[in-house]
């Protein structure tokens, strides 16, 4: 019987413009945590915002979990403004995680913006010397150094900025596919990026795993607000729950609308 876990903030640092890295105490009742899973977060001072907010696990150690959060709206603002010593109420870990490929496979990770965050824990868990990472940012990159620790190479693309390739991260993807011929692509980021990954995966017959975002209420599979369209025998498609059957889906099953 578990419910939201009160977890204390060890530190909270601004790591890029509006991007915060929050280190929290990991407690035993969180159990095993898979890369790609998320925590559903509430602030203790209830009233600040109403529904929980889903935030992916970015990195774990035996005693810590790290979240990387982009301050965008009401809820993430409150979360990002918490200080060391404050607590957050975490429900989870929830959802499925990425299915980890065998260590002999050639792996490509591609992340866009805040979607880079869950890939760091994935890179760590893959324990694979053949991991190559493509990271796309609008302006200032973050987490790059750490990705380097868990991969053979990291390529960075920025839309407007100094560092790395200047343009979209998906521009890099095509050439990397040709170059590396990866067995599996893991992706997290904006929908347009995921669509591109899916399309290239299908085209080159590469397995893709896509971490999706959808607005959630319960986070545990009960309310059915977070539906994601996937292929099905009957009718061609049906809805599954992003919070439960996802947030990681195979590129071969997801149907993106128009």
């Amino acid at each position: 019987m578990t419910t939201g876990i009160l977890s204390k903030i060890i530190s909270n640092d601004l790591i890029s413009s509006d991007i915060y890295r929050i280190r929290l105490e990991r407690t035993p009742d969180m159990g095993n945590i898979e890369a790609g899973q998320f925590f559903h977060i509430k602030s203790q001072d209830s009233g600040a915002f109403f529904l929980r907010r889903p935030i992916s696990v970015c990195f774990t150690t035996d005693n810590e979990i790290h979240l990387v959060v982009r301050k965008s709206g009401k809820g993430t603002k409150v979360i990002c403004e918490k200080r060391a010593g404050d607590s957050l109420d975490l429900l989870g870990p929830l959802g499925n995680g990425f299915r980890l490929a065998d260590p002999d496979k050639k792996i490509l990770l591609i992340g866009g913006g805040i979607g880079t965050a869950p890939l760091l824990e994935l890179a760590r868990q893959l324990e694979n010397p053949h991991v190559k990472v493509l990271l796309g940012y609008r302006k200032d990159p973050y987490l790059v150094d750490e990705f380097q620790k868990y991969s053979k190479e990291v390529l960075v693309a920025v839309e407007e900025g100094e560092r790395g390739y200047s343009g979209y991260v998906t521009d890099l993807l095509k050439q990397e596919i040709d170059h590396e011929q990866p067995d599996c692509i893991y992706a997290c980021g904006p929908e347009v990026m995921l669509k591109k990954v899916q399309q290239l995966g299908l085209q080159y017959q590469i397995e893709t795993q896509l971490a999706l975002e959808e607005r959630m209420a319960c986070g545990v599979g009960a309310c059915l607000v977070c539906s994601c369209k996937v292929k099905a025998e009957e009718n061609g498609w049906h809805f599954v729950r992003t919070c439960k059957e996802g947030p990681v889906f195979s590129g071969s099953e997801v149907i993106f609308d128009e």
Partner: protein
Amino acid sequence: MNRVDMKVDLKGLEMKNPITVASGTFGFGREYEAYVDLNEIGGIMVKGLTLEPREGNPVPRVAETPMGMLNSVGLQNPGVKAFIEQELPYLSQFDTKVIANINGNTIEEYCRMAEILSNTSIHAIELNISCPNVKEGGVAFGVKPEMVFEVTRRVREYSDKYLIVKLSPNVRDIKEIALSAEEAGADCLSMINTLMGMAIDIETQRPVLARGIGGLSGPAVKPVAVRMVYEAARTVKIPIIGMGGIMEGADAVEFLLAGASAVSVGTANFINPRASMDIKEGIESYLQRKGYASVKDIIGGLRF
């Protein structure tokens, strides 16, 4: 401390405690088994069922609003038959009342579902005549007294199960609606379903919900819900299951004082998966603190 007696008797449906979980907010129970011992819940209103499976509305289906949320799930469900085959056996393991929430596009569909469910082990039918998300039906049945009477009377003919009629708050006068349901043979009323609302994303200039309009639930609606339960309780003799924004024990006590014989926990489950248990304990400690022996002692106890 002495335990207080939490049993309630809804004139034909006895529950070990006045806590139920609201339809559409608790799935088919499974989803919360890691958080709550389902044996501890008085009754479970399952996800709204339709005769045929439904995929529901496009996403986004949820919007956060001040102390509330809008949803437009649109009755995504596997259909009444799949419920009976795949979900009911699971739910029947538990010592709790299983209440099937049914939704039809036509009176015939409601009757057909009631008939099908009559031969199962469910304890009660909850006739949802108020779901605002289904274009074809829903609204029309729930907002006019004549229609409420008609659909209730007809369903009554098709089933001997305990019949709960779930009322819509999107009405002019809840009293006349409540009375119509009672006169047509309802055993109980549950209220309120969601208020119709809308939220707009000013950046995209589009509604947050793909369907535009959705159902408002959560603490924001509590004052409306308490008022309607109060008005209905003074109008009808059948028991009422009150809901709308119950987040903690104190909220539940408000509904009981207003005249509800039981309560239902909806949106609160999403914020706190153990909300139903916390609310149960909250009621208990209120009763103990105030020196009541039984929860029955406060039902309709509002004074002026």
